[in-house]
C-alpha cells in the first residue's frame, strides 16, 4: 500500500494523462447531472413548493394545469372526500412581463399562479394586484416594489417579496391571489377564461398518506378527477420523466466508459510492472497487498480527478449567465457522481486482479516473468 502511494508521489507524470482523462469524464458526469437537475428544478419548482399532500386535476386533463377545469360542484365532492381537511384552488397563466427600465421587447418569462393556499416561502396569499416573485427575476432587474405589466393587456401587478425555487416549465413563478389570476387571464388570454368559482386544479391537505388521500379523492369524485402526490405531479409535467430517464441512461454509459478507461489504464500499468510484482512476491508480498495497492492508486487518481472536475464545474456554473444553459450543481449531485466514479475505479482496477494473481514469484530470478 505504501509503495503504491509512494509511486504516486514520486512518479506523478505516469498517472497524469489518466488523471486528465478521468477529470474529463468526471466533468462530463457532473455537467450531465447538473444539466438534468437544472432542467428538472426549472420545470418543477412551482409544484414542489405546494404545501399540500395532493394535487387534484380533472381526469381529462392528464395532470396538465392548463387543460384542467375544476368547477364548484366537483370541488365540493373533493372537499367531502374522507381524510380531506383543506382544499385550495390553483390556477396558472404563462405570460411575458414588462419590467420598468427594460427595452420594449425585453420581456421576462413568468408563470402567474393564483392560489388559495400559499406555497412554501410565501407567508400569506397576497392582496389583489400584488405578487410574490421567484428570485430568478432579480436578474431581469425586478425588485420588491417593482410594478410588472403582464401580457399584451399590460395587467399591472406589484412585487411584494421574493421566493426561491418556484419556477414552472422554465418560467419564473409569480404568486398572487385567485382574483389577480382571474383578472390577468380575462385581460390577456380570452381562450383560457374560466367562470367564477372554477379553478384549474386543487391543492388538498388531509390526514393519512398522500397516496391514500389521492385515492380517496378520486374515489369520492367517481373518477372525475386525477389526484397525484406532489412528487408524482412534478413528475407528470411534460418532459420531466423523459429527461430524467434519458439523462440517467447517458450518465450510466458514461460511468461504464470510466470503468473501461480505468481498467485499460491499470491493465497497462500492471503489464509494465509484472517483473516488479514478481520480485515483491518473491520477498513475501501477498497478491492481495499488491492488488490493494492498485486499487488505492485508482482511488487516489479518481479523487484527484473528481476534485479538479468539481472545481471546474462550480466555476462553469458561476460563469454561465442566467437563462442560458440550465445547469444546477448541488452537493448531492457532486457526492453521487464522485461515488459512481469511485465505484468505477474499484471495478475498473479489478480487471487487473487476474494478472496480479498470475504473477509467479519464481520469475524474479530471471529478468522478467
Amino acid at each position, binding site marked *: 500500500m505504501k509503495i503504491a502511494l509512494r509511486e504516486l508521489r514520486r512518479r506523478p507524470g*505516469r498517472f497524469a*494523462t*489518466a488523471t486528465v*482523462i478521468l477529470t*474529463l*469524464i468526471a*466533468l*462530463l458526469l457532473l*455537467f*450531465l447531472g447538473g*444539466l438534468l437537475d437544472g432542467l428538472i428544478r426549472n420545470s418543477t419548482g412551482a409544484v414542489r413548493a405546494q404545501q399540500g399532500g395532493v394535487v387534484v386535476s*380533472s381526469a*381529462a*386533463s*392528464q395532470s*396538465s394545469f*392548463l*387543460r384542467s*377545469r375544476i368547477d364548484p360542484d366537483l370541488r365540493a365532492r373533493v372537499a367531502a372526500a374522507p381524510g380531506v381537511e383543506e382544499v385550495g384552488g390553483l390556477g396558472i397563466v*404563462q*405570460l*411575458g412581463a414588462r419590467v420598468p427600465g427594460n427595452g*420594449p*421587447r425585453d*420581456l421576462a*418569462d413568468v408563470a402567474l399562479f393564483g392560489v388559495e393556499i400559499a406555497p412554501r416561502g410565501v407567508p400569506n396569499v397576497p392582496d389583489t394586484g400584488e405578487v410574490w416573485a421567484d428570485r430568478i427575476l432579480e436578474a431581469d432587474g425586478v425588485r420588491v416594489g417593482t410594478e410588472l405589466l403582464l401580457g*399584451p393587456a399590460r395587467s399591472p401587478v406589484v412585487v411584494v417579496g421574493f421566493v426561491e425555487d418556484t419556477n414552472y416549465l422554465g418560467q419564473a413563478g409569480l404568486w398572487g391571489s385567485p382574483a389577480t389570476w382571474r383578472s390577468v387571464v380575462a385581460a*390577456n*388570454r*380570452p*381562450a*383560457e*377564461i*374560466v*367562470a367564477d368559482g372554477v379553478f384549474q386544479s386543487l391543492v388538498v391537505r388531509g390526514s393519512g398518506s398522500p397516496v391514500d388521500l389521492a385515492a380517496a379523492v378520486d374515489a369520492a369524485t367517481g373518477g372525475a378527477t386525477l389526484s397525484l402526490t406532489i412528487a408524482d405531479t412534478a413528475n407528470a409535467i*411534460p*418532459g420531466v*420523466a*423523459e429527461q430524467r*430517464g*434519458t439523462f440517467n441512461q*447517458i450518465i450510466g*454509459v*458514461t460511468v*461504464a*466508459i470510466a470503468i*473501461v*478507461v480505468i481498467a*485499460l*489504464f491499470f*491493465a*497497462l*500499468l500492471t*503489464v*509494465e510492472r509484472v517483473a516488479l510484482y514478481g520480485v515483491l512476491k518473491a520477498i513475501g508480498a501477498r497478491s492481495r497487498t499488491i492488488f490493494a495497492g492498485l486499487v488505492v492508486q485508482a482511488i487516489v487518481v479518481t479523487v484527484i480527478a473528481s476534485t479538479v472536475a468539481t472545481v471546474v464545474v462550480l466555476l462553469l456554473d458561476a460563469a454561465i449567465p442566467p437563462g*442560458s*444553459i*440550465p*445547469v444546477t450543481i448541488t452537493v448531492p449531485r457532486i457526492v453521487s457522481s464522485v461515488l459512481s466514479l469511485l465505484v468505477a475505479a474499484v471495478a475498473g482496477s479489478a*480487471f487487473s486482479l487476474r494478472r496480479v494473481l498470475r504473477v509467479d514469484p519464481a520469475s524474479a530470478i530471471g529478468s522478467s516473468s
Partner: protein
Amino acid sequence: MFLALKEMRRAKVRFTLLMAAVGLLVFLILFQQSLQNGLITAFVGAVRNQSAPVLVYSVDGRRVIQGSVIGPELEAQVRDAVAGGRVGRIGQGTFTVTADDALSEATVLGYEEEGLGSPTTLVTGRLPQGPGEAVASAADEAAGFGVGDVVRIEPGGLEVRVVGLADDIQLNVAPTLFVAYETYLDAVRSRNPDAGTPPPNVLAVEPAPGISAGDTAALINAASDDLDALTRADAAAKTPGVAQVQQSFRVIFLLYGLVVPLVTGLFFLIVTFQKAPSLTLLRAIGAPAGRLVAALLVQVLLVVGGGLAIGIGLYAPLSVQRIGGITLRFETAAVIGWSIALLVLGTASSVVSARRVVAIDPAAALGGTGMDR
C-alpha cells in the same frame, strides 16, 4: 503491418478494451446527436415545416405560438405593413384527446389558407379541405393518428378525422394536428365553452412579390414594438429552449470529443514505452523508423476504426427507436462527420508516441531501453 496485426492478436484484451471504450464513446456521441436533433424537431418541427415564410408573434408571446395573442389592432398593423402580400391567421392549443381509445395529449394548429401555415411535408393523404379534418404528424400514426382515424377532443367530444400525414410536424413533443382555422376554434370552444372566439395566436405572412422574407419581417417589426416577426428559420431557431438545448449538447459533445483522442493517445503512449526494448532492437537490426511509425498508425486506425464500428453498430438499432415523444433518426451526416473527426483526432493523438518511436537510438540496444521516460 505484419508487426502491428501480430501485436494486436497477442494483446487482445488490451486492444479490445480500448476499442470498447472508443466504441462506447462513439455510441454516446452519435446517440446524443440523434437525441438533440430529434428533440429539436419534436419541439419546433411544426414551425420549421409549415408553409408561411414569415410568422408574426406578439412580443408578449415570447416566441411561443400558444403564448402569443394577436389582437385586432396588431392584426391591422401587420396587414398594412405587408401590403401586396398575403396574411393568414394561425391558432394553436394543446388539448387532451382520445386517440386509439386512449387519452393522450395533442397539439392542434389551425390555419386559414394553404401556403399560410399549412404543412409542407405531406407524405400520404391530403390537406384538410373542410371542418373536422386534419393532417397528423406521421411519427404518431401508430398512436391513433393514422389516415382514417378519428381523434376526439376532450372534454366536449369534437371529432377530427385524420386525412393526411406529414413528416416532422410535431410541436412541443406531442402528436400534432394541422386543421382548418374554424376547426381549431371549434376545438377551443369544445374544451372551454367560456372561451368565446379567441383571437389568433400568430399571423402567417407571405411577402409581397419582390420582397424577401427577412425584409418583410423587418417592415412588420418597424410597425410596432408589440409585434415580433420572424422568418420561418428564425422562428424555429429562436423558440425558447432550442438554443439552450443546442448549447448544452455542444458542451457535452466537446467533452466526449476530447476524451476519445486522449484515451487513444494515452494507450499508445504507454504501449510504446512498454515495448521500447523491442522497438530499439528492431531499429538496431535495421528496421526503419518509418516502418515502426506506420505500424503504430495502423494500430491507431484499426482501434479507432473498430471503435467506430462498435459505436455505430450499437447506435444503428437505437437510432430508429422513439424515446418518449421523440423520434430518433439515423444521422448519416453526423456518423460521417464524427467518424472523420475521430479518426483525425485519434491519429493526431498518436503523434507523441510516433515521435518517441522516431527518437529511438538503435545504439541503445547495446545497453539500454532506447528511450527515457
